[in-house]
């Protein structure tokens, strides 16, 4: 799948949405099909790195973080069976380069940074990604972030604990008030 097509499909899946979030009820065990498949794309090191970056992007607040809902497991599954080999190898090369860049910039591997340093580093990267044109390399970090966000908001707890999950809204009402507390309303 072309990257652009992937992003379009993802945005379709993460359909629009709103109301108060569900009260945090503790971390649910995700009995997904994905969690039963053995990781085949990421080795242990890569998996740790993926989780560390993903959890810095989407940290645990009163709602789950990225790896609480197994974003890394789904990401692995998508790389295995949804994205083609070119995409997969670019992704893995990007992940490797990410760690090398981190070493160059901070003197440490990403996993060796403390939580505050991780957040600072990703913030820096995020700001760079949005201002710099980088013709010579795939903006890996941006792609990674998009995937993590889209997967997180396709998981049951990601949706139910952060958004207003309403699978059967009833008759459509076209024009209603939105307040500062109005969350994205999400169906299936």
């Amino acid at each position, binding site marked *: 799948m072309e990257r652009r097509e992937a992003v379009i499909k993802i945005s*379709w899946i993460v359909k*629009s949405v709103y109301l108060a979030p569900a009260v945090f009820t503790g971390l649910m065990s995700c009995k997904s099909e994905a969690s039963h498949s053995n990781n085949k794309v990421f080795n242990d090191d890569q998996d740790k790195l993926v989780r560390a970056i993903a959890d810095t992007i989407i940290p645990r607040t009163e709602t789950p973080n990225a790896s609480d809902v197994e974003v890394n497991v789904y990401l692995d599954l998508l790389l295995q069976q*949804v994205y083609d080999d070119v995409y997969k190898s670019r992704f893995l090369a990007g992940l490797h380069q990410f760690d090398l860049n981190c070493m160059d910039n901070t003197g440490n591997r990403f996993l060796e940074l403390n939580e505050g340093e991780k957040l600072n580093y990703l913030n820096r990267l995020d700001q760079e990604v949005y201002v710099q044109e980088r013709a010579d390399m795939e903006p890996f970090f941006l792609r990674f*972030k998009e995937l993590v*966000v889209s997967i997180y908001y396709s998981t049951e707890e990601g949706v139910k604990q952060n958004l207003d999950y309403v699978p059967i*809204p009833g008759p459509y009402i*076209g024009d209603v008030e939105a307040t500062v507390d109005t969350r994205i309303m999400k*169906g299936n």
Partner: protein
Amino acid sequence: MKNNTYDAIVVGSGITGGWAAKELTEKGLKTLVLERGREVKHPEDYTNTFKAPWDYKYMGHVSLEDKKAYHVQSKKYNFNAGSKSFFVNDLEHPYVHPKDKPYRWFRGYQTGGRSLIWGRGAYRFSDLDFEANLKDGTGVDWPIRYKDLAPWYDYVESYIGVCGSVENISHFPDGRFLPPFELNHAEKVIKKRLESHYKDRWLIPNRAAHLTRAKPGQFKGRSQCMSRNMCHTGCPFGAYFSSNSTTLPAARDTGRLTLQSNAIVISALYDHKNNRVSGVRVMDSITQKETEYFARVVFLCASTIASTGILLNSKSESYPNGLGNSSGVLGHYLMDHHKDISSSGVLEGYLDRIYRGYRPTSVAVPRFRNVNGNEMNFLRGYGFWGAAAREGIHVGKPGVGAAFKEALSYPGPWKMALSAYGECLPYYENKVELDPELTDKWGLPLLKITAEFGDNEMKMRRDMKEQAKELLEVAGLQEIKVNEGASIQGDAVHEMGTARMGRDPKTSFLNAYNQSHDIPNLFVTDGSCMPSSGYMSPSLTYMALTARACDYAIRQMKNNVF
């Protein structure tokens, strides 16, 4: 033979086959409907309709394996894990096209055919469309005018339920409407801006086959739309029109319907002595057993390309080039709408307004080019469809961390998108043929489809692109982007024209009642009958033409014409 004899045979159970089944059985005919695909029962076979993204292995994504098996079908916007089972497997159902002329043939082989996965737009053609060929000298003149079809549009709309607004636009006739899906706040703002700027452009709620209101019992087992926007998984409420929810149950209620699944029609049987169709030859898709069925009248409703294939494959001494093809037009003049030009932009402000539910329709800007004479450097015209919505989860939103995560869960700004659908002229060179060598796994010849858009469409596309941008500029949007994709024939899934109606048997296949000029008990009422394409979804027109043709056939049978 006696067990295989019916009053009427209908080939196909999709939008037109369902209507033919309903009309013929309700008027007393014992009717056999032949569907080449599997059985899909309403609503119990809509197995994905309550699934959430996390209920699918790949969260709704299409796996690499499925992308191979559905290499054409997976290119459709509504193909996903939830709707996959209503599309054909391309490896099992191949067709061919010249290398330099791609063609996308989207199909659903099951009870109800593509009526389960259609876009649900329901529009009346007007005399701007019915007179177009005559006025600009392209193709053949439609043998009917709006007044001939208007009562049948009334009849069909009242039965299936079409929502829409009364607008009094003469070339976009109003119908018997249920209330429209309301415009959202941004659309109301944009409507006001557009309509105060232009005298001849309107932004209106789309017209579509959805039950926005249903009194108890009014639509027989169907109920009001719950705004889930999950239509393509099959609707458990029967809130959009499909054969499965609407026409086939009506036909079944008469006790005169026999619906046979897995029944591939190979050819129509021709009775040379009486110049009549005597029935059809059918292959069971599972056992490969061949059977002949007989009837007084045969309705081909298998969809444009498939019905044309059946006729081409029905060869006899009298009709060596396809049944009823004395004119030689059968298979030619294939049309589709051209699309894939779109624009989008951001409407600033109005963040205190939103909507509740997921509207399954859009808004429309009816045609505004060449309405009163030809003022453009191309013939005919196009319309826009689109919608405004608050931005949902923004995967590319700047930021990381807790504040970013929190911000993601609130709706973003209003965004509006428009995309164009344009009319395609009938070209002799755009055609469907039987491949002389290749066959499918049932030993039937593959269909070879050769089609491309012409100069007129390309000129129209330049204007479409400019106007897609201009409309959003006039509406005061920011960050306007315009996209143009490849215009590939078949992409709009509005294939039509290969057995066209007309006044002259020398230049057309069907008469004004969808009846073969050559063989009086042969009717074709799917898209193959269309002499021109219009620019909007043709499905409602097919339904009205089918109901009208059934009425005519019954009258002819009463008068013993056949």
